[in-house]
């Protein structure tokens, strides 16, 4: 030993003197950890609360109640309630007249401005109403119509009365009209029936998520129908059937790679393979679902393999012992026992697919589509893409509607993940 030995009393003194410092260091590290977690949780809370505060008003909007004279001759000239007949009717003129009787605009210019106060969906709203309830004909009843988005923003206080008229999106004249309507108690702030039932629209007061919602459902169904069987089959093959050789190794490497490929690349593949080579149409949920299926496949395979691996070998041995074949062991014992784990992985994969945007932009699901898609071959869009499109619009009301759509999307994601956790807790078995 060349090291000089320290006298034990001296050594204990050194330790004693340094111990407070070392303990302080220890506490500091602990504090850093707490601060880091605190920051992350704060971000999370801030994100959720900022979106919730912005989005909550998006579920509501301002309506004006008008007394409509349901004159059958004018609304439904052919008298058969067909779309064509109602289209030829004077629904929007009737709404305007009802408005004019209250606010009484003087002159052509005032009338022209007043017409724009009620959302341009007024005629559709009126015709839908009589189509669902023809008894209204011949009566005078009050109906609620959405107000134009600029007036909505004014009533919410985003457009200030004090701003000079030239810098305001609405004129003094309209403010006067709005005051008049307000004084008569005709304006009400209510749960918006457009956000859930409306489809894509350039008018923020009429925009809703119905089309995107059904598009998401169709896309996810395609994705599930392709990804779940394929994923489970691959997992079963790799865990139960295949011998360890070069080919299975190659498959495993590929699965890991696919999990690392950026999602936008899957979109490019969809564009190049499904659309260019196979000649499938753009913007349809079928192609979207296929692309998302290939994207979620690694998630499903990896979790399914873990679930299969968790089934104890004794179960298989028992089944083999009473004469079951390999396939019977797999389909009668291993898969049923591994099903909770597989389902959990699948739900998490579907939640990923539900929130995915970039690959769907590539295959054209970003188009402006008003109709609700009825089949996987109809052009459609999905919730996250709808959010992306709305986020680009400048109108104040779109910000609220976008946040409202985000709340709905997050609601679905959270409930899917919660369901996956519940499933795992409920069906999980310890061996």
């Amino acid at each position: 030993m060349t090291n000089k030995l320290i006298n034990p009393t001296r050594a204990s003194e050194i330790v004693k003197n340094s111990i407070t410092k070392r303990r302080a260091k220890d506490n500091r590290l602990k504090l850093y950890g707490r601060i880091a977690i605190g920051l992350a949780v704060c971000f999370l809370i801030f994100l959720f609360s900022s979106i919730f505060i912005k989005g909550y008003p998006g579920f509501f909007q301002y309506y004006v109640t008008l007394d409509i004279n349901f004159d059958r001759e004018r609304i439904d000239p052919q008298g058969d309630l067909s779309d064509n007949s109602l289209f030829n009717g004077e629904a929007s003129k009737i709404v305007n007249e009802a408005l004019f009787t209250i606010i009484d605009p003087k002159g052509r210019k005032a009338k022209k401005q007043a017409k724009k106060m009620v959302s341009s969906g007024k005629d559709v709203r009126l015709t839908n109403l009589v189509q669902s309830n023809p008894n209204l004909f011949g009566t005078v009843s009050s109906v609620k119509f959405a107000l134009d988005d600029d007036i909505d923003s004014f009533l919410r206080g985003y457009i200030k009365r004090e701003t000079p008229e030239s810098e305001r999106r609405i004129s003094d004249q309209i403010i006067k009209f709005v005051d008049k309507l307000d004084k008569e108690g005709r304006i009400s702030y209510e749960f918006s029936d457009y956000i859930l039932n409306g489809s894509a629209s350039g008018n923020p007061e009429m925009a809703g998520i119905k089309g995107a919602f059904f598009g998401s459902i169709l896309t996810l169904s395609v994705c599930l129908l392709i990804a779940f069987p394929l994923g489970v089959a691959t997992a079963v093959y790799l865990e139960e059937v295949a011998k360890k050789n070069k080919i299975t190794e190659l498959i495993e490497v590929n699965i890991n790679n696919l999990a690392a490929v950026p999602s936008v690349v899957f979109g490019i593949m969809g564009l190049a393979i499904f659309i260019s080579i196979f000649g499938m149409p753009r913007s349809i949920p079928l192609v979207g679902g296929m692309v998302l299926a290939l994207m979620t496949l690694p998630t499903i395979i990896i979790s399914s393999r873990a679930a299969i691996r968790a089934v104890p070998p004794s179960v298989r041995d028992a089944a083999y012992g009473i004469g079951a074949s390999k396939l019977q062991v797999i389909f009668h014992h291993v898969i049923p026992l591994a099903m909770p784990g597989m389902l959990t992985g699948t739900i998490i994969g579907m939640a990923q697919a539900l929130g995915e945007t970039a690959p769907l932009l590539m295959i054209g699901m970003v188009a402006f589509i008003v109709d609700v898609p009825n089949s996987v071959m109809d052009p459609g869009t999905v919730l996250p893409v709808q959010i992306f499109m709305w986020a680009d619009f400048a109108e104040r009301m779109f910000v609220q509607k976008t946040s409202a759509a985000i709340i709905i999307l997050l609601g679905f994601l959270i409930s899917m993940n919660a369901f996956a956790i519940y499933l795992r807790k409920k069906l999980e078995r310890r061996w």
Partner: protein
Amino acid sequence: MTHYYGIFCSLSALLPTLGVFFIFTICDDLVFAELVKEYIPNEVINSKDYNFTIVLAQINNSVEGLVFGTPPQWVTNAAEIWKSWVIKSNILTTIVCAITILTSGFLSYKKINSEFRSRNAVEKIIMTLLAISSVIAILTTIAIIFSVIFESIRFFALIPFDEFLFGTVWNPQFEGAERAGSGQEGLSQYGSVPLFAGTFLISFIALSVSIPIGLSSAIYLSEYATSKERAIFKPLLEILAGIPTVVYGFFAALTVAPFLRSSGSFFGLDVASESALAAGLVMGIMIIPFISSLSDDVINAVPQSLRDAGYGLGSTKNETVLKIVLPAALPGVVASIILAVSRAVGETMIVVMAAGLAANLTANPLEAVTTVTSQIVTILVGDQEFESAKTLSAFALALTLIIITLGMNFYALHIVKKYREQYD
């Protein structure tokens, strides 16, 4: 087990038929596209701006009844002929499918006798199906690589390789494919350096947010936290990874960016409304869980005996963690950071929504930059001219993106594999 005979018969009848059906439905359009060339008049083929893809699209639109304006007579004629082919091919498909299903069904039915082991035969078929489905992963990879490589080769035929890799100006314009000989050279420039600089600037900002936060929380969660704290905070952090990126993009563009802008002007700084900083910060929040979860796992995997040895020598928890546990877990931690980088490089929606499209070559995080992914999206969304260098450039960008992310992924896995068993 009598039902295996039935299963055997139906499987061996259905599977070939399904195969035939798919081949017919996929191939008929390709065959029609070849045949329809006969019906395109010569003067159209010889004209200067002849493009078969566009002509085909015209005919297809006409077949589906989408008519814009008045198409030339020959398009309508070709569409009529196309329609008649569709009817013929439908009949043909039905007949061929019926024949296949009957013959293969009959053949398999004839096989059945008391000696025939139907269970084994069925198992063989199903095993093959399982094997085929597992090959899909390989097929997808091949599809991805090929879809990108072919277009990239065409791109590099138009634009020299070194100009793309080392050029410092990115200014793509639609100008058709005639760049090579039209004397318009210099109009568009495809130097990808600003895009990669922007990508790495944003990734750098993201990592300088997520590495300190992710690592400290991983250390805290695995070494200091009680099991109750762990049960609460680990899932909370993982929520961050489950939020859709479009939500982050919206948050970055509408909350963080205006906030940075106003606080920047408060300090006298000029912050662009689409700054790299906003996108990078929000992306950093997004990738915290990628670092914290993986690092947490590898720190937990360090054997307890190492810690005990540290305590046995009289070290404090801090010293044990920093000088023993962390070095032991370092390969895994590095791997998690590399994976986070590859996630940041490939992230799309946040940069599309918050980072802007201006290809600035700058290291200033307060300016607007653009990234590889956001250029891919802007180029490929909407209508494209398929032959132009601009469209093809997106594929070349995608190729480099794939190479970078896959390279990082391989490297990370390699590190993990190499050092995994060191302490077992």
